């Protein structure tokens, strides 16, 4: 499905090339949920941008469904962290329907499908509201509905709940998991939160270093509920991999 093969990433600034990811290799199978975790500056978002097609790799190859990804496209729909990723001049339903129209759907079918995904993400009552009338959590739901409605080969999420309060974040994590169960979407999710990775993921790719490399790929399918000893054990293990000191999950 998604193959990241000896990928090297960086960007130009002040006349120098800054390396962010030294080398990363891993694969994501169809319907699998892979979480990429790392501390700030570990290049995890850079990696997502490269998969999305916004940043060409400086080395190695990224292939999605056996095709080399060169340009951004709706087969790799992205949910960003920023709340202002919606078009302010379109209401909720139009924000979801518009990308479908762009991709060749007829007006009626696009509207029907948009409504379906707006309902799936619990936004039915807000369908005709404009983005500035929505809370942060609702805006992220719209972005999720928009990305899902495109039925991407792989759904890319870049810390989508990072700017939300803890309660809303936990609720959206649970709902996202339920929605993914129903839609069988392949997920590539970037976060710095171990708990988020354990709640949502099947495998966790740990990026570490500066520039970073893949330190370990951990299977977290059988980790159990958050109050179980196996979960606590896994949490400790991931903290060690990330080299986090103290007891703050978000510690940098």
């Amino acid at each position, binding site marked *: 499905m998604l193959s990241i093969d000896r990928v090297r990433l960086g960007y130009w600034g002040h006349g120098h090339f800054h390396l962010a990811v030294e080398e990363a290799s891993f694969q994501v199978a169809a319907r699998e949920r892979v979480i990429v975790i790392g501390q700030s500056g570990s290049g995890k978002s850079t990696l997502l941008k490269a998969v*999305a*097609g*916004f940043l060409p790799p400086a080395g190695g190859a990224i292939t999605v469904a056996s095709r080399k990804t060169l*340009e*951004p*496209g*709706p087969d*790799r*729909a*992205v949910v*960003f962290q*920023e709340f*202002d*990723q919606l*078009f*302010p*001049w379109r209401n909720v339903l139009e924000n979801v329907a*518009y*990308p479908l129209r*762009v*991709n060749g759907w007829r007006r009626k079918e696009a509207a029907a499908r948009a409504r379906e995904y707006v309902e799936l993400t619990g936004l039915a009552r807000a369908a005709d509201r*404009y*983005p*500035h*009338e929505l809370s942060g959590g609702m805006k992220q739901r719209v972005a999720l509905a*928009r990305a899902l409605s*495109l039925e991407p080969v792989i759904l890319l999420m870049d810390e989508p709940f990072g700017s939300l309060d803890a309660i809303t974040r936990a609720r959206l994590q649970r709902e996202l998991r339920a929605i993914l169960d129903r839609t069988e979407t392949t997920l590539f999710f970037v976060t710095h939160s171990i708990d988020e990775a354990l709640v949502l993921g099947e495998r966790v790719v740990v990026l570490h270093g500066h520039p970073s490399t893949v330190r370990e790929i951990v299977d977290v399918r059988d980790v159990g509920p958050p109050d179980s000893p196996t979960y606590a054990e896994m949490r400790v293990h991931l903290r060690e991999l990330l080299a986090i000191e103290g007891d703050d999950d978000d510690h940098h």
Partner: protein
Amino acid sequence: MTTTSVAVPTRPGARLRWGRLPAWLRYLILLAGLVGIWAAYGALKEPSPLLFSTPRDTAQAFWDGWTDGTLARRTWTTLKILAVGIGIGALVALVLTAFAAVSQIGEDLLRLLVAILNPLPGVAVLPLAMLWFGLNTNALLFVIANASAWPIAISLDTGFKTVNPTIVAVGRNIGLSSRRLVTDVLAPAALPHAISGLKTAWAFGWRTIIAAELVFGVAGAEGGLGTYINNAKLFLDIPQVFAGLVTIAILGMAFELLFGLLERRTVVRWGMKTST
């Protein structure tokens, strides 16, 4: 003009009575007061009718001018030239900002042109325009286009530069072509700035064309509002001078309302601008 009233701690009685009236009534009362002062001055001081026109005489001249079609024709002439002039200015601004958006040399050129030409008062180029184009509408169009192009260019440039990069990334992600990225994402995102640029252009253009007509004399068959005022002054028909001025004031208010309505329907409704 604000649409919301903030609870400022003032004397409660005064605030309650005046602030609770609808806005249109508040402005109407103030307007009636101003016309009252105008009428009182005319009645008490009895100034020379060769210098001053009372509200009554002005209203009469205004009514006559609009019913016999003179003022309507003059206003139409002025508005037509203004609209075409601003249209040309907007087109020039659009081409220059588009060029500036895609190339460094374009950006430098835009900066330089704005720095040179924007501080120039619109009418300042009129003598030159008259030499180049002769005493015709083209000279006026040139002056108006020059007066309106630069404020529009500045606003559009700011508008395009301040578009939220996340929205552009989303546009590319959902598969928009470059052309649709411009028409469907960049253009609406820059709309608040585009409207404010157009407002400034309108204000500059309006002042410029009236001033130009006053200097210029007759353009075409009959001339516009500025010519109307100038001719009335030559014939010492002061009520007509006042009627022309009142027409200008009313049009100014009408356009202010029109732009306000446009903003409430678009950028304010979308939360891209907080109030009109």
